[in-house]
């Protein structure tokens, strides 16, 4: 049966904590007075003797211990039960409480209802005014001796209260432990799910890698055959995709007994969409007379007819028009070289100009042709230019990955350096000149490496 109408005195420097406690006590039907420090609280207690005192320890102007000691040495107030609110973070706190004569400890933070229960229990067993029973006890704690003057009942009450506190805290710990264990179980489950998701990702990844490898193999089939050997023509090429799939490709092949077709194609972007387009383009650029080839067809007399480069570009552009432009396009430089005469006819769909390095020793020349990238603008006609090679002349076709290669300061390698490098390579073999250019570009892009596919095709005419 809870008590009501108890006269409670609170000493607490935190206004908010005092208010919370005050409201709870008032609700329980008690009379509450509040002082914000020990000194004021003592004055209030002397003014009217409370039934019980609840006091914080840390307070300005007389701490809880000082206040308690003053109460317990006051003849009128000494039997008022005194509850100390402590964090009990140090065993010394108990000695100090005992020494001050406190009857009970409640550890902070506390539930107001717990404090109320404690209060009721304390009031149920009135304190005896028994000064003689107070003996001086010697206690050793942490190697230090303390002389504590305390009565038996006080000691018992205080010890029981600390024990109760410990039990309450222990119960909290048990609950916390159970919660932890639940959390651990759910973590374990989540972990297992993660492991299985990881396995799934790895499985999908393996699939994708396999698909990409297969696609890369298809792409390599677009490149010149290993045994491409043509009379009076030296051929060297390099092809370095920046991802596993590239938008670049090139080829060189005989079209008929006298003519050789050669091209470099660069599809915009990288990765799957670009490489799919590259493969599709490649099917049209085949030297085998077939329905799909736009390079050669069978003439009425049964002989192979070679399409002029401008016609090839115009037709490709027509073939790659969709109702709605997807934004995917390609540039191409396509040439047909007549082996007996050294005449090169070529057309360009927005592709960088080819470079001729003359055998005579003059400076390298750029030869381009007007024309927009293919698939970009519907219904356009492409121009065709011709270049007369001299014996020993070299020509180089390449993708924009060469002149547009960026160094770490985002400066482009540029056409000038490229031309100078190719000119410097004239005294070495064609093979060496191409690999020197590739090395120079790769060195330029250090340390990150090229961000675009790099394609270089070098041809030397030696009739």
């Amino acid at each position, binding site marked *: 049966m809870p008590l009501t109408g108890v006269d409670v005195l609170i000493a607490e420097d935190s206004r908010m904590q005092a208010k919370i406690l005050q409201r709870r006590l008032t609700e329980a039907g008690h009379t509450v007075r509040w002082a914000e420090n020990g000194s004021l609280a003592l004055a209030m207690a002397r003014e009217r003797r409370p039934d019980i005192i609840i006091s914080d320890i840390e307070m300005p102007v007389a701490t809880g211990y000082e206040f308690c000691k003053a109460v317990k040495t006051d003849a009128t107030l000494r039997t008022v039960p005194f509850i100390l609110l402590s964090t009990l973070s140090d065993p010394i706190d108990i000695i100090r409480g005992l020494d001050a004569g406190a009857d009970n400890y409640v550890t902070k933070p506390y539930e107001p209802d717990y404090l109320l229960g404690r209060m009721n229990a304390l009031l149920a067993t009135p304190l005896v005014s028994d000064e003689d029973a107070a003996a001086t006890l010697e206690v050793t704690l942490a190697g230090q001796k303390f002389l504590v003057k305390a009565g038996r009942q006080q000691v018992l009450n205080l010890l029981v209260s600390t024990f109760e506190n410990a039990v309450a805290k222990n119960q909290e710990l048990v609950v916390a432990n159970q919660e932890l264990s639940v959390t651990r179980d759910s973590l374990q489950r989540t972990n297992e799910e993660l492991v299985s998701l990881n396995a799934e990702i790895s499985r999908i990844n393996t699939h994708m890698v396999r698909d990409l490898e297969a696609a890369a193999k298809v792409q390599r089939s677009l490149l010149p055959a290993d045994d491409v050997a043509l009379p009076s023509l030296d051929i060297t090429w390099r092809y370095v995709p920046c991802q596993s799939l590239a938008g670049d490709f090139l080829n060189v092949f005989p079209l008929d007994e006298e003519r050789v077709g050669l091209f470099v194609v*660069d599809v*915009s*972007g990288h*990765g799957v969409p670009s490489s799919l387009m590259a493969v599709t383009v490649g099917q049209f650029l085949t030297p085998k007379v077939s329905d799909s080839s736009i390079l050669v067809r069978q003439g009425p007399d049964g002989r192979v007819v070679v399409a002029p480069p401008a016609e090839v570009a115009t037709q490709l552009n027509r073939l790659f028009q969709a109702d709605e*432009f*997807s*934004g*995917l*396009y390609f*540039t191409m430089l396509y040439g047909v070289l007549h082996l007996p005469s050294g005449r090169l006819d070529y057309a*360009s769909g*927005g*592709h*960088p100009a080819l470079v001729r390095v003359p055998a005579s020793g003059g400076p390298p020349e750029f030869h381009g042709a*007007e*024309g*927009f*990238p293919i698939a*970009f*603008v519907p219904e356009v006609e492409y121009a065709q230019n011709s270049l007369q090679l001299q014996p020993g002349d070299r020509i180089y076709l390449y993708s*924009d990955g060469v*002149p*547009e290669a*960026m160094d770490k300061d*985002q400066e*482009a390698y540029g056409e000038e350096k490229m031309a100078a490098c190719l000119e410097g390579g004239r005294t070495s073999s064609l093979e060496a000149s191409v690999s020197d250019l590739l090395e120079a570009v790769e060195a330029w892009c250090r340390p990150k490496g090229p*961000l675009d596919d790099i394609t270089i095709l070098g041809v030397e005419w030696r009739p």
Partner: protein
Amino acid sequence: MDQFRRIQTGKKGDIFMVLFKDKKILDDTSLDEIRTEMAQLLGKATGPDVLLDFSHVEFMSSAMLGLLGQLHRKVTGGNGRLKMCGIRPEIFQVFKLTNLDKLFSIHKDSPAALATFT
């Protein structure tokens, strides 16, 4: 009307003014976002006049040209006009290499470009 992440937009009379905010337009994600935002901006407008300002752009991949090609078709298909300005020399090189400097209407800065819209 500035609800976009990649483009800053405004209107001068009937002309849609678009400033690309990015310094680099290189990866597919930026391209896709620009494409989406441009589509949102132009909506169902048939043949709008559009001015694209590149003055913030320092690097641009050739895939961006494809996007410009799409815009070009959409705008000119409806008898609108697409103009570009603020293109720095490094970026202009990308247009030049592909001959597209001859397809697109390119001007020095936005006042110069606006003057040609009359």
